């Protein structure tokens, strides 16, 4: 039998991966595992081999393990050409070439885009550049912040109480560093988990000695004559002396390099189908460009086929594996990426996990355990079905609730369980903030049904 195009691709093809982090690496490993023998190029703008981000706001800030020591374990040798420290600056879809910032161009037969997200910077650039003002997304950010915490700052201000901000505050307290957390919403984590759980998170902060200020915005950061940050000013007219500020206001998708390429990429990410194939701006699916990880937005059958963007470690791995599989498969052998969202965080000694999409929930029921004991399971309901669940130190039940989500089981759960307490007898309003008010790091964003990103104006590339 004659070789198919697919056999040819597997034997001699050129696959390029842009974004050499979690999704990029796992995708590349899967390609080799599936028998891809052709050339593989890994393009990453950071100078480091792939490393793991979750420890940056956890162990690395506590001096247990360093930010430098977070290299991702390798599943196998990927025999790739590494182009590290150089950004991809453009894409020519017709000619199938990736343009690099150093002027080089790399041709491909298949492209995997896994450029992730970056920390949203402090809106006032001059203030953001003051010495002592940090964001936390990269290894360099982690090293710099850890070093500053080692030096024993007088007071740290964390702006934004999403997961990352809360973890940073927790690390500060564990190290005995004074910390203030400022959050625009009424409680930490409300964007991701709603007000009922946010109230528990707020108590955790306060019990652990965090000076938590909610319903407030930081209006300005003030530097001293040497350019070091010395104070912050709040919307209620008060101010605070602080020598370290961590801006933790969520993330922005790394899609700027695709502007003008014709790919369906914008501020909300790159739209792809359930098979991880990218859409172009006309809403037509491409056949040679695949997307995975934090930068992707893809439709999910369990959540009404809305496009979901997930900033979840497990999603990056799973989506990259699916993308790699599909790249090397005939159309009938392709698999959909139907990973049920799952997220974890650890803060103030509590392990928090969630499955599904809590932020779609309108109601929540504490089905097991008790909030006062900080050990419970909360189940989210949307239109009479189970849509998500969260556990505080109770993760062993998560698998069950994941099955409930997958089975679109009715809400409120009509059955008794072990460890049902008086507070778990009936659902409460989940109390999510108005979705039109942006919150910091909901970690799951629903973005409607259109593969095109309406908020994007497609400006022609500058070259």
């Amino acid at each position, binding site marked *: 039998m004659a070789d198919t195009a697919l056999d040819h691709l597997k034997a001699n093809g050129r696959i390029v991966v842009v974004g050499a982090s979690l999704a990029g690496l796992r995708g590349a490993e899967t390609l080799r595992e599936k028998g891809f023998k052709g050339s593989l190029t890994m393009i990453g703008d950071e100078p480091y081999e792939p490393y793991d981000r979750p420890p940056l706001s956890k162990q690395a800030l506590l001096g247990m393990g360093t930010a430098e020591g977070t290299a991702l374990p390798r599943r196998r040798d990927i025999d790739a050409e590494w182009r590290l420290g150089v950004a991809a600056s453009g894409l020519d879809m017709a000619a199938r070439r990736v343009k690099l910032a150093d002027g080089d161009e790399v041709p491909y037969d298949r492209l995997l885009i896994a450029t992730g997200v970056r920390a949203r910077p402090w809106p006032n650039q001059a203030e953001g550049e003051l010495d002592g003002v940090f964001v936390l997304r990269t290894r360099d950010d982690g090293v710099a912040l850890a070093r500053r915490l080692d030096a024993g700052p007088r007071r740290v201000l964390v702006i934004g109480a999403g997961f990352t901000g809360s973890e940073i505050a927790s690390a500060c307290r564990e190290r005995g560093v004074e910390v203030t957390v400022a959050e625009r919403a009424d409680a930490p984590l409300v964007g991701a988990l709603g007000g009922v759980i946010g109230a528990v998170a707020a108590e955790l902060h306060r019990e652990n000695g965090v000076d938590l200020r909610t319903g407030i915005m930081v209006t300005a950061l003030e530097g001293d004559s040497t350019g070091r940050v010395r104070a912050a000013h709040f919307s209620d007219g008060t101010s605070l002396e602080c020598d370290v500020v961590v801006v933790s206001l969520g993330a922005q998708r790394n899609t700027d390099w695709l502007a003008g390429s014709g790919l369906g990429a914008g501020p909300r990410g790159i739209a792809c189908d359930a098979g991880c194939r990218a859409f172009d701006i006309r809403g037509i699916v491409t056949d040679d460009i695949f997307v995975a990880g934090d930068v992707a937005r893809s439709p999910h059958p369990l959540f009404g086929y809305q496009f979901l963007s997930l900033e979840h470690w497990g999603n990056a791995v799973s989506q990259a594996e699916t993308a790699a599989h599909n790249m090397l498969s005939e159309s009938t052998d392709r698999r959909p990426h139907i990973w049920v969202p799952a997220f974890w965080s650890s803060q103030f000694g509590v392990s928090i996990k969630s499955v599904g999409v809590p932020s779609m929930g309108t109601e929540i029921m504490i*089905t*097991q*355990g008790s909030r006062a*004991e900080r*050990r419970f*399971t909360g189940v989210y309901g949307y239109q009479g079905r189970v849509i998500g669940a969260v556990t505080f130190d109770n993760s*062993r*039940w998560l*698998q*069950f609730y994941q*099955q409930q989500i997958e089975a679109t089981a009715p809400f409120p759960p*009509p*059955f*008794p*369980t*072990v*460890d049902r307490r008086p507070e778990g007898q009936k659902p409460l309003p989940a109390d999510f903030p108005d979705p039109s008010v942006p919150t910091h790091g909901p970690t799951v964003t629903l973005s409607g049904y259109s593969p095109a990103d309406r908020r994007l104006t497609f400006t022609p590339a500058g070259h």
Partner: protein
Amino acid sequence: MKQGILSDILDYSNRANPYPLYAELRKTPVFHDGDGPYVISTYHHIQSLLHDPRLSSEARNLAAGAGDPLAGAEDEGASALPPSFLKLDPPEHDRLRRMTNRPFGPPDSPHRVDDMRGFLHTTVTGLIDNLGDPERIDLVDQFAYPFPVTMICRLLGVPREDEARFHVWADTLAASLDPDPGADPKEREKTTHDARMELGMYLAGLIEERRKNPGEDMLSQLAVGHGQDETMSTMELLSTAALLLIAGHETTVNLITNGMLTLLRNPDVLRQLRETPALAVPLVEELLRFEPPVQLLPQRTPLADIEVGGVTIPKGSSMWLILASGNRDPDRFENPDRFDPYRKDIQHLGLGSGIHSCFGAPLARLEAQLALTELTRRLENPRLVEDPPPYRQNAVLRGPRHLRITCDGVRPS
């Protein structure tokens, strides 16, 4: 489905090889006959039920008259101790297990088990040194039985001089789980009852003593508590100590004995283990899949009507989860009836799963790894004297009553 398959499983004549019966059972993944228990035999159903918060381990949730031929087989209630956490649901289960874990495992005591390595090794070495005539060894009586009790004594901090008495009680209690059809049931009941009372009295005294003079052992640390949470009451502590003793005894005996039996039936693997002691780690996992010491869990009941594989199991029904059958489910494991320590994907059910998953797992693993490595290393050319060996009655905690072997000699340690 063949009628009477449950009585076949319980029938002693099938003890040596129940696996064909399990294969038969799996054709009806949720089996129910008359007023008997609901029997679950496939991997995925068992696994998800063990994570299902609608399932209770508490006897009081069983509907009156829920038929279970195993009911009462391991009746610890007679001792008037409160139920141990094995038979409790959250939050009580969690509270007691958490407190018990503090002096045992991470995060508070990450080194407890590892620190026992040296003592384990010395114990194993001593037992092998004393095997006597290499041509007539009974690995059950001479090795596997004494070993775990010595470990539990050490863990709990039972003084050396009391250990002999402790062994007697432990053996009596283990035997009570194994009805001997020949013996007078009244007589047995009395022996068991006496052993339980004496053990209880002994432990109560020891706890009293440790409260005053705490040492590094687990009993001391449980008795004084950790300040956080509450401290265990004396009654709770007694139940817990008895649980550790019972849960970690017969099970470990069976794991070691099943292990040697399986190795002697698979001489290639035996040789590989002798050459590569590190093989012991995956080998013990494969053993827990292939010949699990706890064949089934008879202690679960649903708090509501639940649906499993299209069958509604009514609230309060008695259920059996056949771990040993799930472990041989071809929908989960390739070539399930092959013993293969090199198996890559080995998420077995041998230690349970979910909130009641084996508390002593790290210790059990270490015990079995060490015992099998040392036996393999030191016994010269070991052979089975009889195959299959005679089994104990018990269908739940299944294992050989004797494992007679012969060998050319015992290498010095």
